[in-house]
């Protein structure tokens, strides 16, 4: 790749020489930027942006425009077409949980998720505000609340009006069916009465011996058939009416949605006001302080020993609460962004665990055939095992370490402590580490282990024999041989393995989270599936995209790392 860039550099500077003799020196810094940029996009694997950059720097514009059309515009067009097909086909497919959401619905779901996250942040901020800032914030929130409330009223009214109008329209559409239904019901009623009469008449005839009992049975069979046909006809009309009812006019839906949105906002601001005025950190501290003061005056005046004991006890409790109040934070709700962060943390831990085990073991396997022979059966048997099985096994085995009370286990106490040693801010506190997360991370590690291990072993055992001979001639010791020859020469393959591992880990993680209810994208998807609200289907598809995009970027990062450690043109050959 590099060579290619170099030769291109030579060509283009030659070309320039012909066009503007004597001006080449001035072009040099520009060229430097250009080739720097080109090298960067090549390294990061976004070769698609090669033509536009060349175009910006004015290199062979016709060719670049052709390349852009071929390798950028056409793909964009194709993806656009796919989205368009999704937009057309999706909403037409009715499922148990409603129509399949189209792209626009999913995009809105993203907006709502983002707003939800914002709200959580605002609430947490409000909770921690103190002094003048809090007072200021209260007035601000009140003002906004007023605005939203008036708007909500307006929208509510509009929504009601449109709904009424919509209802009228619906009634109009329903009217013919209703009339049909009435006539049909009347017809069925008379038909039923007639049948009943016929049955009674025939029964009498049978008792008189004028008709055979078989005739009676045949009549009943005929009548029951007729009954079924009647109710089927009724059901058909009912289904049509139901469809009209379940599909209110677009305007009504839109008005309702708009009204709901603002109503949500009103709800949120009310909650914020409540937090700011009643449950804010400062406020709750003040409340505790006043109780303590009250109790203290009572204690001073108290004479009954029982009363004194009771008061002292409650004062002690209140004081300890006061100390805790300082550390209190509003517990965050599980927003999709928080879930994403947690998933990333889990996959990172799992991946690191896998790398820490796989690389040394892989090196040992590659260096020593006996070790390889010993480990081959273990690798072959455990590699195909499903992540689900691993998760269950880890829940039992690793879970045992956290007994009896996981919340009090030193690992979780440390990881969830807001401050370490009282003053270092713990950057992992927001994750809320719990056993389920550990199990998920272990599962990720277990499944991500194999590709890295196998590739490392391969990389080490495929070292050029000449390089080993160099080591022999130089009489390098074991460690020098390891760090100067073995590891550097196998790094490209090791990173190729790690890249596969990370991909596997990310895929496994989502399943593990769904199964173990460890907070993360997997759990988010599972919860949405279980909860089945109108938005959840769109949220599931949204999560699908988030998982995909993050997976894509993780892979890119690994490609860049792999390219950085490769000593040749990106290939693993020496």
């Amino acid at each position, binding site marked *: 790749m590099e060579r290619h860039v170099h030769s291109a550099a030579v060509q283009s500077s030659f070309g320039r020489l012909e066009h503007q003799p004597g001006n080449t020196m001035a072009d040099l810094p520009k060229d430097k930027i250009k080739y720097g940029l080109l090298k960067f996009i090549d390294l990061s694997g976004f070769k698609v942006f090669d033509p536009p950059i060349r175009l910006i720097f004015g290199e062979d514009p016709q060719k670049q425009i052709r390349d852009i059309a071929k390798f950028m515009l056409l793909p964009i067009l194709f993806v656009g077409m796919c989205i368009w097909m999704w937009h057309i086909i999706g909403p037409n497919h009715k499922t148990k949980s409603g129509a399949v959401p189209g792209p626009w619905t999913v995009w809105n779901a993203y907006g709502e998720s983002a707003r939800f996250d914002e709200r959580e942040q605002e609430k947490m901020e409000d909770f921690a505000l103190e002094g003048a800032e809090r007072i200021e914030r209260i007035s601000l929130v009140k003002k906004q609340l007023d605005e939203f409330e008036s708007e909500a009223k307006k929208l509510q009214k509009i929504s009601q009006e449109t709904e009424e109008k919509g209802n009228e329209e619906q009634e109009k559409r329903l009217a013919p069916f209703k009339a049909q239904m009435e006539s049909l019901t009347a017809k069925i009623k008379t038909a039923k009465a007639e049948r009943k009469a016929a049955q009674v008449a025939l029964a009498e005839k049978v008792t008189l011996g004028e008709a055979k009992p078989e005739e009676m049975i045949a009549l009943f069979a005929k009548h029951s058939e007729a009954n079924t046909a009647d109710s089927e006809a009724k059901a058909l009309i009912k289904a049509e009416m139901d469809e009209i009812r379940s599909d209110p006019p677009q305007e009504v839906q839109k008005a309702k949605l708009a009204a709901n949105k603002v109503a949500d906002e009103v709800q949120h601001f009310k909650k914020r006001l409540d937090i700011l005025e009643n449950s804010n950190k400062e406020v709750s501290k003040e409340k505790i302080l006043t109780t303590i003061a009250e109790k203290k005056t009572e204690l001073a005046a108290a004479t009954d020993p029982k009363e004194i004991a009771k008061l002292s006890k409650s004062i002690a409790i209140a004081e300890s609460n006061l100390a805790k109040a300082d550390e209190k934070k509003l517990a965050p709700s599980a927003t999709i962004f928080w879930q994403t962060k947690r998933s990333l943390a889990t996959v990172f831990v799992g991946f690191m665990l896998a790398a820490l085990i796989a690389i040394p073991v892989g090196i040992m396997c590659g260096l020593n055939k006996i070790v390889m022979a010993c480990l081959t059966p273990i690798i072959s048997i455990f590699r195909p095992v499903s992540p689900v099985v691993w998760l269950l096994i880890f829940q039992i085995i690793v879970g045992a370490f956290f007994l009896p009370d996981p919340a009090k286990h030193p690992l979780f106490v440390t990881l969830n402590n807001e401050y370490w040693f009282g003053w270092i801010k713990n950057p992992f506190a927001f994750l809320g580490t719990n056993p389920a997360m550990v199990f998920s991370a272990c599962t990720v590690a277990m499944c991500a282990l194999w590709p890295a291990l196998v590739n490392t072993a391969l990389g080490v055992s495929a070292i050029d024999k*000449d390089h080993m001979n*160099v080591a*022999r*001639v130089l009489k390098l010791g074991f460690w020098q041989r390891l760090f100067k020859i073995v590891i*550097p020469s196998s790094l490209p393959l090791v990173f190729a393995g790690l890249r596969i591992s990370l991909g596997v880990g990310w895929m496994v993680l989502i399943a593990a989270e769904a199964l173990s209810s460890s907070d993360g994208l997997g759990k988010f998807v599972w919860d949405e599936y279980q909860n089945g609200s109108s938005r959840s289907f769109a949220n599931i598809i949204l999560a699908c995209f988030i998982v995909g995009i993050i997976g894509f970027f993780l892979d890119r990062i690994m490609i860049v790392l792999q390219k950085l450690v490769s*000593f*040749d043109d990106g290939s693993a050959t*020496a």
Partner: protein
Amino acid sequence: MSYLEMNQVDVSFGPVSNRTDVLSNINLSVKENEFVAVIGFSGAGKSTLMSLLAGLQQPTAGEVKMDGKLIKEPGPDLGLMFQNYSLLPWLTVNENIQLAVKKVFPKLSKSERNDKIAHYVEMVKLGHAGDKLPHELSGGMRQRASLARTLSLDPKVLLLDEPLSALDALTRSELQDQILNIWETDKRTVVMITNDVDEAVLMADRIVPLTMGPKATLAEEFVVNMERPRDRRTLNDHPEFMRLKTEITLFMMGLNKESKAAAAEVVPMPDIRPKDFSLPSANIRLKNKVSQPTSAA
């Protein structure tokens, strides 16, 4: 007084029941500061011979000695320059040499070490490319870097395993001069393996032909009685050069014929000739082409 010697060395591979003898009854003796070239066809076992001298491989029978001591393992004293450069591709030229210098002179300070590296890099005229990675260099530059690394070991014996066979003719002659220059200013014992008669006559004091394998052995040597320094430009007019060149070439060609004859004895090829080559479509051009091998056989 021989400095480097091989006494009745045999090398064979494979299990006892199915042995392949590569080298058999090799006797070689190299004096101190002598330049000996071993010449042979590819596949004759030249590289195996070199591995023996470098201590990378042990003989099946016989002994290989340097300065009277058996060679049991490779080491910096036996400076082997590999056929395909064997530079570590993840290290720059300087770093490759540094690896060797650090090992052989571990007590040098950093600046002394850098001086030493610079000295060897300059010696092969690579001063401008010290910070380049091997894959950024041309074949000749790589081989020069490899030579610098070998020289930086300050070896007692320099073992050159077809050092120039992967290079183009121009680079090759340039490097030949460089190696000769270095050797003449800083004499040491050299064993060079080559398949180029001109190269051997130009560079060596003695030329030892290696016969064809299997069971290759060293044939009668040719002594090059030509004054040094030898001038490449006048070489073709030098009667001694022409004589040696012709003699060695004839000898080598004779070896080739002999081995072919020997091979023919071992596996008699059945005398089979195709009856008819005509294709259904009777394409004349194709017919002519196909019938050629028949006449050649």
